[in-house]
């Protein structure tokens, strides 16, 4: 699972239904990683009449509780891969292992009742009420009516739909966002450990999509399902994924890693191209201000005199001096021209403080604040508004460089042939491809 390289192994042709010893080879080497919930072992799909496989010997582990994103250009086989997992498409080679159990040849209908499945078009049954839709799988599993009814109410509530309003409605009476919530509720019907989602938010307007994504992530925090999520949108992948598998033709894994590391160190040109410009900018979402080494900056209390302030400024070789009030809250930015006007009180000269961020803000938010700041610096304050330090552009530069080094160290630790990565992986984000 920590292998970001394309898999070159030949498809697993042996029919080892009962032999589980091979699983040991597939388990992650990292002891901190939880056990895999889903294992694809050399899974292939070749359609009849075609020589080129749609999915070519894909080996992939998804640990319990992880959101794994499959992302790639159109036609790379990501949807096919997802549909191979619940055997909506039958694989022509390899094994699918759920929680240590080989399910490549079990009854597919039976198997799917224990795997949640959400598709972009949702596919609610138009002639059934919302309650009947959500209760589809529990009903098939033979739950009694009271239990199904309680479960439906619970699911509607967790997906943000009031059961008293929506229970007896029909799908045509729902908005797109509401329908997708019902789709998720229905997939969670019998509390399956695994969810497969095929561009679930693809057909929803951007504002609703953003809200549904956030709600879904919150829900996932509680539920801890193992999720495989297909999208073609790299931004959605970065936002939703614990790990991202970037796929190229025939579902070959180009890079499989955390969003942060993929953004910091795209392994090759394909990945770099797919991420597109702004990788460094997107990567800033994964770092927080509290992890930064804040720059030393000249600060002064508001009772300082003009002359003293000028002296401080010159000593520090800085353009700006930050003025704090008695509670150490940032007050004004002072520079020499402002301080020369001794006719005004020091608290009314200079520029007002506009850009402050808290320690748990992301670097992305911090950069935004810096761009809006009159001095190009963001001031870090604690929750009571007291001054903690200042973030300058050099600090952000250092952070990005550090992230890149960490990613490179990580790959070196794995013993990867480093020449496979471009020597200066900053290139894709820097030269505006």
């Amino acid at each position, binding site marked *: 699972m920590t292998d970001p390289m394309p898999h070159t192994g030949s498809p697993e042709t042996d029919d080892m239904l009962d032999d589980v010893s091979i699983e040991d080879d597939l388990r992650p080497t990292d002891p901190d990683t939880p056990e895999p919930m889903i294992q694809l072992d050399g899974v292939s799909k070749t359609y009849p009449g075609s020589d080129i496989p749609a999915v070519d010997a894909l080996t992939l582990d998804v640990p319990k509780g992880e959101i794994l994103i499959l992302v790639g250009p159109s036609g790379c086989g990501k949807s096919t891969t997802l549909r191979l997992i619940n055997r909506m498409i039958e694989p022509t080679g390899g094994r699918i292992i759920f929680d240590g159990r080989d399910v490549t040849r079990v009854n597919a*209908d039976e198997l799917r009742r224990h795997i949640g*499945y959400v598709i972009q*078009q949702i*596919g609610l049954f138009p002639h059934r009420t919302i309650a009947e839709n959500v209760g589809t799988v529990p009903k*098939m599993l033979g739950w009694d009516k009271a239990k199904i009814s309680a479960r439906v109410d619970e699911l509607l509530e967790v997906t943000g739909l009031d059961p008293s309003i929506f229970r007896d409605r029909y799908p045509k009476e729902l908005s797109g966002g509401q329908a997708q919530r019902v789709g998720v509720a229905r997939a969670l019907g019998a509390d399956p450990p695994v969810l497969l989602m095929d561009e679930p938010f693809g057909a929803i307007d951007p504002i609703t999509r953003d809200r549904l994504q956030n709600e879904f992530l919150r829900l996932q925090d509680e539920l801890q399902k193992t999720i495989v999520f297909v999208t073609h949108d790299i931004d959605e992948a970065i936002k939703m994924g614990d790990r991202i598998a970037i796929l190229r033709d025939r579902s070959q894994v180009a890079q499989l890693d955390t969003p942060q590391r993929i953004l910091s160190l795209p392994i090759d040109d394909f990945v770099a191209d797919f991420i597109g410009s702004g990788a460094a900018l997107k990567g800033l979402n994964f770092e927080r201000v509290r992890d930064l080494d804040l720059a030393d900056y000249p600060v002064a209390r508001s009772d300082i005199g003009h002359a003293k302030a000028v002296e401080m400024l010159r000593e520090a070789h800085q353009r700006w001096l930050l003025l704090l009030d008695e509670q150490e809250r940032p007050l004004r930015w002072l520079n020499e021209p402002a301080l020369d006007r001794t006719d005004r009180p020091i608290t009314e000269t200079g520029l007002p403080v506009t850009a402050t961020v808290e320690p748990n803000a992301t670097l992305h938010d911090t950069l935004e604040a810096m761009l809006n700041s009159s001095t190009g610096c963001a001031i870090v304050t604690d929750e009571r508004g007291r001054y903690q330090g200042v973030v300058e552009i050099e600090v952000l530069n250092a952070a990005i460089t550090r992230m890149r080094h960490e990613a490179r160290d990580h790959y070196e630790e794995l013993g990867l042939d480093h020449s496979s990565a471009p020597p200066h992986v900053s290139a894709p984000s820097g030269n505006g491809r």
Partner: protein
Amino acid sequence: MSTTVAEAPSSAADIDLEGEPPEPSTSPAGSGPRGLVSLVVTPIVLIASAVLLATYVGGADKDSAETSALDWDTKLFPQLKEHLTLTLWSTVLVILIAIPLGIVLTRPILRRGGPESRKILGLVNPVVLSFANIGQALPAYGLFILFLGWLGQGENTSIIALALFALLPVLLNTMVGLDQVDESVIEAGRGMGMSKLRVLTRIELPLAVPVILAGVRTALVINVGMATLAFFIGGGGLGITINSGLKLSRDLITVTGATMAALVALTVDWIAAVVERFLRPKGI
């Protein structure tokens, strides 16, 4: 063929929805206030027309030929019964043949199967459809004569001939009804672990019901009309009265027979509309 596909469902819709804005979710079989009104008003009009006809015929000055031909107990009532029997059984036959056939012909294996099966099975659809098409394209009279030569005269021959004639609308509507079920709904059903049979019976057929019923309704009305020709091959029905009116040049007899056949057609159509209204699944 393609014109029939478009026609069959909409011909039912025309009756109730004339002038209504085209709303895809509105059911043709009298949902919505206007449809409801027509469902209630139609039987009143039909009963009034029947009473009017009975009064007119009863009060008219009749000669002996007319009196004999229009006798209720010995002529009109038995003919009416025969007419309904012909219509009912031929429609039952149509349903029993056309709906299962339509289901089979829309199964994915016949539709897009593998490239191997496609070569053989891809021919099935056009062959079956052109056969059904012949049933409707042949002149009804010729069809009756063909069956007469094959099966001899009588009620059963008439029923089979009528069934073949009305096969196409039900077959096509079954196929169209099943085809128009959203692929994603089937995908979702299969993805949740419903078997193919379960998806067919719980999802596809219920969703196709309105379109299939519209086809059945068309078949019923066709059969009522065509059953007036069944007397040619000894099938009985109201055609006897119409024919004797024509032969004796007695307009009263002809008009009575024709009006009764028309009233039967409208009544049958109304009953089918009521059934459609109650069988239509909620939510679509």
